[in-house]
């Protein structure tokens, strides 16, 4: 198929979406143009554009995203590592499951944002508290997905391994973990998505020098509606990227699974 033909098909299938975005944009511009809503409340597209250019060219957006991403990296790594390990041992051993499950289920009931005040008391308002908060948020999805992934590995595969006299380690490495991997990866995607929201929450509640949540808070404090919209879009875009990226990875790992079922 030629590229032109592909584009034609793409447009034919997606033009409705373009139209609604265009209409929304026109309404927005119109409302601003005729001053139906004060620019203090609804910035004009031009203001948003200027704010975006300014925040990018001054390097503030880059630094903010960088600050948040470092926090996520740390919190996410700690949380997912611990979650994966605990999920794995609980998945493998029924005794450990029975030992830990009630505790984990109880802790899981706390709405994640509810941890914020306690974490601040325990870890202060510096980096540690943000990292801890993100780690707690990243911990649960990966734990549950690892556990369920391992439990969903069919017993018949385990029997095949028994026939071939696999050791426990080999059984884990060759059968259990690969079988659970799609579920684990989707846990990683969930954890990553959660980490992204939580870094914003953490930065709103405990301010730091650079972070996307800090930029968001300061956009409000400075009463800069253009920057507010820029922040909303940037946060949404990154969430979208994370979802796409990990979704892609998940889909690749799932090829055998999907067509197999």
């Amino acid at each position, binding site marked *: 198929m030629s590229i032109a033909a592909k584009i034609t098909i793409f447009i034919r299938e997606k033009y409705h979406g373009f139209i609604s975005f265009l209409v929304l944009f026109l309404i927005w511009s119109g409302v601003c143009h005729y001053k139906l809503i004060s620019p203090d409340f609804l910035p004009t597209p031009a203001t948003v554009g200027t704010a975006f250019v300014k925040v990018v060219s001054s390097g503030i957006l880059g630094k903010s995203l960088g600050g948040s991403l470092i926090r996520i990296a740390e919190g996410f*790594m*700690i949380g997912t590592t611990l979650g994966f390990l605990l999920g794995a041992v609980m998945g493998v051993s029924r005794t450990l499951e029975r030992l830990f499950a009630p505790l984990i289920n109880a802790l899981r009931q706390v709405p994640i944002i509810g941890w914020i005040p306690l974490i601040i008391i325990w870890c*202060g308002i*510096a980096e540690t508290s943000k*990292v801890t908060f993100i780690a707690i948020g990243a911990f649960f999805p990966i734990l549950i997905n690892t556990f369920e992934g391992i439990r969903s590995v069919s017993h018949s595969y385990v029997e095949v391994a028994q026939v071939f006299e696999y050791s426990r380690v080999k059984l884990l490495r060759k059968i259990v973990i*690969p079988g659970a991997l799609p579920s684990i990866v989707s846990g990683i995607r969930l954890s990553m998505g959660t980490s992204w929201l939580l870094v914003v929450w953490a930065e709103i509640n405990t301010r730091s020098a650079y972070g996307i949540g800090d930029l968001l808070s300061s956009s409000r404090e400075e009463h800069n509606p253009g920057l507010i919209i820029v922040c909303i879009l940037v946060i949404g875009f990154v969430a979208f990227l994370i979802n796409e990226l990990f979704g892609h990875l998940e889909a690749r790992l799932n090829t055998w699974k999907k067509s197999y079922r």
Partner: protein
Amino acid sequence: MKKIINILLVMAVGMALFGITPGFAAEKVIRIGYPGGSGRPVSAGGWGYVQAKNLFEEEFKKDGYRIEYNYIKSQGPGCNEALANNSLDFSFHGDLPVLAGRSGGLKIKALTASRGGNAHLLVPTNSSIKTIKDLKGKRVGVGVGTWTHTLLARVLNDNGMTLKDIKVINITGSDFETAIATNDIDAGFGSRALVRRGVAKIIWTTVGKPVKYQSIFSLVVREAFLKQHPDIVKRFVKMYVKGLYLASLNKNETLKFNTRTGSALQDNIDDNAGQSIKYITAPRIDGQVTQLYKEVQLVAKNNGLIRKPFDVDKDFIDSSFLEAALKELNLENHWPNYDYNGNPIKK
């Protein structure tokens, strides 16, 4: 497939290490906390001189200590939290927060105290609120847990009301300024800067009122740090007193010096009208300070801000370092002791 597993494993190990290693980096540092609502990382008064003249840095250079000033945006309560999880050694914060911290189990000692801080009750310029009594049912912005919180409680009590009669909105710093400007709150304690900008007007102020309405700020130290490094605490207090001494020499100079924090000179002059520079800089935890502490604690208790009161004299104050410093610097008679009403006690 296997590659992916291997990559994940390596990542997992890396993550674990990455998360753990920062804990090993130990260095010699003295960490000072300071409520930093104003936005600029500089202080006024004695602290300003200590900082500007690098007194701590000079003193502790030979021991290899780094000095770290932390401007804590969440103010006094934030200082408490930082002390609690060992991210600060010293802190300088207001009366309610240190008392609430101590009452909540925070192991701290007050080493010095300073008095005479002022605050103004602001309402938006177009507001119809004229007196304290008009606050009934209104949204009042206050940094919950800061010294203005007890001040608010006290002022309301004076007018036959309690905190329950108004809507307390927890808000500090620039958030407060925005909220007043946008009428999101009806009143709150803030600085004269907002009046200058035409955003707010003052309906009540501590300036010229009895001493009991003014703030006390204390230099506090973590007890564990005190036990571990009494020598450092001693030298620290000495340097701090030196800064206070510099500040106490000339009122006009010091008020001008204070504008480094971003405040206007005239505001400084107005706020400190009628107070001698010696009174503002006096470090002793004398009868006036302990009495005021007890009063604040009582007000806080009665308004539900502190639940477990404690013995201020016994469990909280340690004047020995200050007295030693004054002696070493030959400043024993530089500052008088003050009576409850703020008059110097003649020896």
